[in-house]
């Protein structure tokens, strides 16, 4: 029974058998963030070669959404240049995770992207759009 759009087989697969899970012994870049709401914590190590992601591993405990998202994101990262990594958007992730995701769970889905952006790529805290 597909209980709903969110916990479909694709997500559960990534959760049960996450890709790129583990630790890199000597990452070029390493970062960790936590989501205080649910206690999720994602750490990520990246190895670059010829300016591209040669290896990436994530670790941490968390809900199915954050773990599956990390699995999916790290898959996407492989082979990309930092420039290309910067192109990965929130919407890219949310599209993969599923449309039916409430605001509280979006944070779970986007935690690994946060680690990538702020921790690995060193982007500054996103300035919010100015209100008109």
């Amino acid at each position, binding site marked *: 029974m597909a209980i709903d759009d969110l916990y479909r087989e694709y997500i559960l697969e990534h959760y049960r058998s996450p890709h790129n899970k583990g630790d890199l012994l000597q990452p070029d870049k390493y970062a960790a963030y936590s989501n205080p709401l649910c206690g999720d914590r994602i750490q990520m190590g990246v190895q670059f070669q010829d300016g591209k992601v040669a290896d990436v591993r994530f670790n941490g405990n968390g809900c199915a959404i954050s773990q599956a998202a990390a699995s999916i994101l790290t898959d996407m990262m492989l082979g990309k240049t930092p420039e290309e990594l910067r192109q990965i958007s929130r919407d890219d992730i949310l599209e993969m995770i599923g449309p039916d995701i409430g605001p509280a769970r979006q944070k779970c889905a986007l935690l690994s992207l946060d680690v990538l952006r702020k921790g690995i790529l060193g982007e500054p805290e996103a300035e919010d759009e100015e*209100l008109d």
Partner: protein
Amino acid sequence: MAVRKVSAAHIASLAPREDFPILAQTIRGVPLVFLDSAASSQKPHEVIDAMSRYYETSHANVHRGAYFLSEQASASYENARITIAKFIHARSAKEIIYTRNTTEGLNLIAQTWGLQNIHSGDVILLTEMEHHSNIVPWQMLAQRSGAKLVYTPVTDEGRLDIEAYYRLVCEHAPKLISFSLMSNVLGVIPPAKEMIAAAHSAGAVVLCDGAQFTAHYPTDVRDLDCDFLAFSGHKMLGPTGIGVLYGKRALLEEMPPFLGGGDMIHEVHLQSFSTAELPWKFEAGTPAIAEVIGLEAAILYLQRLQMTRVAEHDHAITKYALNRLSELPWAHVIGPASAEDRGAAISFTIDGLHPHDAATLLDRDGIAVRAGHHCAQPLMERFNIPATARASGYVYTTSNEIDALIESLKKAHAVF
């Protein structure tokens, strides 16, 4: 003083009076004439109903729940922040911090930014017309820090002595300047934008007390360029228990937290914690969720009325009331006699009749005015009076109500 004839035509209420259930009341058998809006305004149906509806259909604690009701409540709570940010033209909703009232907002700055930045010998510049809420927190801070409080005087006419202000700014180079955008006693609206620019040239940080102002005038924190602004929901058609503190983001980011507890933290260990992002860093514990929703409803209501029209209406009422009071040779307005740059709070004394007795006698006619020091004892001392009576109108006030006030005052004066 010559008795002038009033030529102004009848002024209707700006807001439909039937929107305000309380105004249909009679008090001691006579219709209520509510002229104490400067203390707290009345509320339209929409505000009252928004809160009831919230409790009836979508209450749950915010931020921490992954279920439907909590997500709904959280969304309402945060959407209101955007409405408020736009209402005062803040750059971002992160600059909007929910407080209980103006008083808490002012204390928050004193106890966070103040304790961090104000040191022994530093000067805090206030004005003689401030509300106790914009005096006492600074006295408390001065006691702790050794700072000095200096006050811009008020002229005999009842306006801020602007020349003196500029002089004091240059002379003392204050670390912080805090003043009210509209006096709740004198009604006076000081030239805030110029005052703030001068303050900034002298290196001061500026906090504005918007308790009275934001209810009556379009407020643009970007144009004013104030660093902080505090105001209250209950004076602008909103519920009790909710206020707003605006702060420039860069300043807020640097400030230590105010109260510690749930929601304002990122991580907590037994011996240390880290703070949440803005604006939650300053919001500890379960917030006033229903009240935030009520305040948003009030702001949407005001925006439909349009703040420029609110300002015009209140100006017309003020002018009318000042004119009519000038007919009474035994009544003396404390504050400017002209309606220019002054809002709808009109304080006065009456020869031979103590303000408190005046209020009691007016009350017998269903007319609600306030009598006392209006939380501005230093200003009372300045004018060497124990108290004033104060009539203050708002969007629901009509010139007929001012007429009722005048007639009742005449009756009261005749008794004494």
